[in-house]
């Protein structure tokens, strides 16, 4: 199976949920699936306790490689402490590396 990187760049909403649905299907089909939150996508990581979000189901579908861009958090004043998912904070060099390391890159 191919490896797939999902780039999440948009704010929460139906379109974001639809991307998450697709990530879960990727997981079900046993694609190696990684997820990188950057730009406004980091807002999806906020308030996961208060709202329904299938992001919380990712690990159950074997989607466990989650990343977030450090500068996207900083420029939006989003604190990593407020995030209830287990993810790695990376810089833009790692973003280039992640894109190079996957067979396919999908965006939201």
């Amino acid at each position, binding site marked *: 199976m191919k490896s797939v990187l999902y780039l999440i760049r948009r*704010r929460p909403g139906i379109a974001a949920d639809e991307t998450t649905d697709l990530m879960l299907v990727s997981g079900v089909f046993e694609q190696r699936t990684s997820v990188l939150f950057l730009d*406004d996508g980091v*807002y999806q990581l906020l*308030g*996961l306790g*208060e*709202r329904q979000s299938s992001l919380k189901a990712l690990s159950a579908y074997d989607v466990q490689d989650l990343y977030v861009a450090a500068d996207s958090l900083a420029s*939006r*004043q989003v604190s990593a402490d*407020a995030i209830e998912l287990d993810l790695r904070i990376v810089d833009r060099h790692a973003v280039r590396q992640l894109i190079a390391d996957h067979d396919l890159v999908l965006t939201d």
Partner: protein
Amino acid sequence: MAVLHLLSNPDALASCLAAVAEGDSLLLIGDGVLALPLVASSKARLGVLRDDAVQRGTQLPEAAEELSYADFVSWAVACRSSVTWS
């Protein structure tokens, strides 16, 4: 009479703030609430629609008033016109 600025898109924050005049009101609704941490100070009376802030996990600072929809209507009635930054 004052103008009510409605910010529903955080990307429009800079333009919105530049258009706010002394005495105006600024209310963050929808995704606009995400811009709250970035509103350092404003000449305007600052409000946040409570339901939207809670839904999006936005922390409310002391400088902003929490509004219900009924309060939102009161603000709209109290201002002579409104501008939506979406």
